[in-house]
């Protein structure tokens, strides 16, 4: 190796961690989005919506533990730095996730007169989690600066992430439900699609304006030729979603998976853009991936395990999705 300090292991771990965060954003993103969208006016629809995510939410949330765990294992000093910078939003997000998680069970097991209250806790918990996650992302991206512009950016990011989660949540419902609820979900998806598109444009522009380095990373030559096709692909996906969602319900439910699939692609693209922005930092302009990495022995010990276990995890996750495939039915047990 020419530069021994540029070890590949930290790079492998930052990729794994990024992948875990991305999978979390897509998977728990739809759970949280569905939670935020729970309507106040229709108990039956609330039931169906929660049934649609019931078998999946727990494993989905585990990706967050996995991602935070990888940050902790591979980059302990960055882990401390980031979580202390985000102390209060983290606590509020955890409160939101606690409320959402327990509401799943309490809503059907506590006395039925409390059911609506637990449904409300479900919705509020989901909303708290999405807003704080967006806010934390914004704070993280600006390197925890305390300027007004940076705080405004974090608020913008909170709204954007919430819109994105609502979009992927309603896209999930279009795929997993039928009848009135599916039509309603398509309407939610259309609105949040527009909101998310505006948000991505706003975040991209303000991100470029906030930092010259990022401006150069994207608009310098020849990188700009990557930016253009990415932008065009995003625009195409938004239009595709918009056109498709207007036509729901289609005959035989043709292509009900299209909005969810394109939402996932949009999440992947945004994530890749962010990762490209950040490289090689793990805390913006303060700590690089190699600065923060744990000892090689420790990374190697867990890398071997991850290489063996992760494919198994993916396999049995696929198995669960197969068992609960198709349109949502009541969850009996």
């Amino acid at each position, binding site marked *: 190796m020419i530069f021994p300090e540029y070890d590949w292991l930290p790079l492998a771990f930052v990729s794994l961690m990024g992948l875990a965060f991305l999978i979390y954003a897509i998977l728990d993103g739809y759970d949280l989005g569905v939670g935020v969208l729970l309507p106040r006016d229709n*108990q*039956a629809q609330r*039931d169906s919506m929660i049934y649609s995510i*019931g*078998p999946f939410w*727990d*494993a989905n*949330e*585990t990706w*967050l*533990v*996995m991602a*935070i*765990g*990888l*940050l*902790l*294992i*591979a980059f*302990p*000093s960055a882990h*401390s730095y*980031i*979580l*202390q910078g985000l*102390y*209060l939003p*983290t*606590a*509020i997000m*955890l*409160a939101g*996730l*606690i*409320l959402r*998680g*327990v509401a799943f*069970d*309490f809503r*059907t*097991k506590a006395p*039925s*007169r409390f059911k609506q209250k637990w449904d409300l806790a479900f919705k509020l918990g989901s909303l708290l989690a999405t807003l704080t996650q967006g806010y934390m992302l914004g704070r993280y991206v600006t390197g925890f600066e305390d300027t007004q512009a940076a705080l405004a950016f974090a608020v913008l990011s909170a709204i954007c992430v919430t819109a994105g989660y609502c979009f992927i949540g309603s896209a999930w419902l279009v795929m997993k439900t039928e009848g009135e609820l599916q039509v309603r979900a398509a309407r939610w998806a259309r609105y949040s699609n527009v909101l998310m598109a505006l948000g991505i444009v706003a975040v991209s522009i303000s991100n470029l304006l906030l930092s010259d380095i990022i401006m150069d990373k994207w608009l310098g030559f020849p990188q700009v030729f990557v930016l253009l096709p990415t932008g065009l692909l995003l625009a195409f996906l938004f239009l595709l979603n918009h056109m498709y969602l207007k036509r729901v319900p289609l005959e035989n439910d043709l292509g009900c998976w299209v909005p969810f699939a394109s939402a996932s692609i949009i999440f992947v693209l945004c994530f890749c853009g962010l990762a490209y922005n950040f490289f090689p930092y793990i805390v913006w302009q303060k700590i690089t991936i190699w600065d923060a990495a*744990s*000892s090689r*022995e*420790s990374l190697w*010990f*867990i890398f071997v*395990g991850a290489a063996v*276990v*992760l494919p198994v*995890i993916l396999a049995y*996750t696929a198995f*669960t999705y197969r*068992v*609960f495939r198709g349109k949502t039915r009541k*969850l*009996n*047990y």
Partner: protein
Amino acid sequence: MLELATDPGVSSLMLSRIQFAANISFHILFPTINIALCWMLLFFKVRYATTGDDNWLRVYRFWVRIFALTFALGVVTGVTMSFQFGTNWPGFMETVGNIAGPLLGYEVLTAFFLEATFLPIMLFGIERVSDRMHTIATALVTLGTSTSAFWILSLDSWMQTPTGFEMRDGVAYVTDWWEVIFNPSLPYRLTHMLLASGLTAAFFVAGISAYRVYKGDPKHSAKLALKFAIITAAILAPLQILVGDFHGLNTLKYQPAKVAAMEGIWHTEKGAPLLLFAIPDAETQSNKYEIAIPNLASIILTHEVDGELQGISDFPDAAPPVAPIFFSFRIMVGTGVLMLLTAGFGCWYFVRKNQYPPWLLKATIAMTFSGWVATLAGWYVTEIGRQPFLVSGVLRTADAATQLPSGNIALSLAMYLSIYLLLLIAYISTLFVMAHRAIRLEANNLHVSDMQTDPANIQGGISEKSFNLEKQA
């Protein structure tokens, strides 16, 4: 003293400690039930498969719903734990991250995903997968919960009795993973905790089943669960006393200061007495109001009448606070004795004579959460007993705490405490709501066990109608 109280570092440390203690105490309540309850569910499921007796299926169905509720609480409070290290204890990961990181990582990889992914199949998959696959899913969730216990106890034991590492520039580096994972106190602590989980779940099942019997549940399944739980408790309680004794000897070898605090021994002495009760006083380094059995502590710990036991004063600047450990230890042992008595009487009346005297049912109900009391007290002994260190001899707790303003920590602590109080009330009351529902359901329709209806409505005999309503929803 005044200076200390206004120093932000000190109050952040104290608040961080209280917050960590609150989070982990609240979290441990739920896994403690579920690690063993899952094994019991597997047993119920297999019993049903081999005997074809519907009662086992009814027991399974009632308890799997409580398992799911408990699991949800365990998951959400566990997620909170995974953030605490970074938010409040930055020095922990910066010093021993090379060891703690991979152990926690293996817990996520080998346990969390396994239990989280197969739980839905265990719960909702009963009509979607084959019966065999369902049993396999149940077994995998059981394996997941127990594996999780293994990894976290490995880390905790390493913090108590660290081996297999070397310090370079103030950071721990692993020299031998085997020695790290299977450190000297792991076998004892793990066995002690798994048995504690077994006892907690046994009294939990026995207590709620006794409540159903006491409230007049005529179904055989309630009595079946009660007998099963009492027999389990009667087997595990004596085993736990034996394992606890071995664990104590192991602690004496590696952490003598902890044992000195447990026994209330201030100064090294030969033929130390066993204190049944006392009030330890740190100022004077002595005990008040002692009730003691002469020489017994030495006999238990050294197996010699005149065996020498080290006192707290032998560990200047490295001794834990005595009073909380001394009292927690007595609460743990006292609860254990009550467990043994309840299990003994239960075996005699419920199991052998098939009689259900109200006084014994009431006593069993009173013991429903006894496992929680004993487990928490035991953990306080071992964790406070490690102070003033976070990792014995390696890292002091004060050196690992965050320097964040204490106001932030006070705010998050207040928020966690209020949520936990709400959840604890909701959890316990929901358990009894579920028990009431089960009492009033008809015995011959398994599907109604799934209903959520006010107990008042069920009495009116409208189960058919509300069942259909549920179906439409």
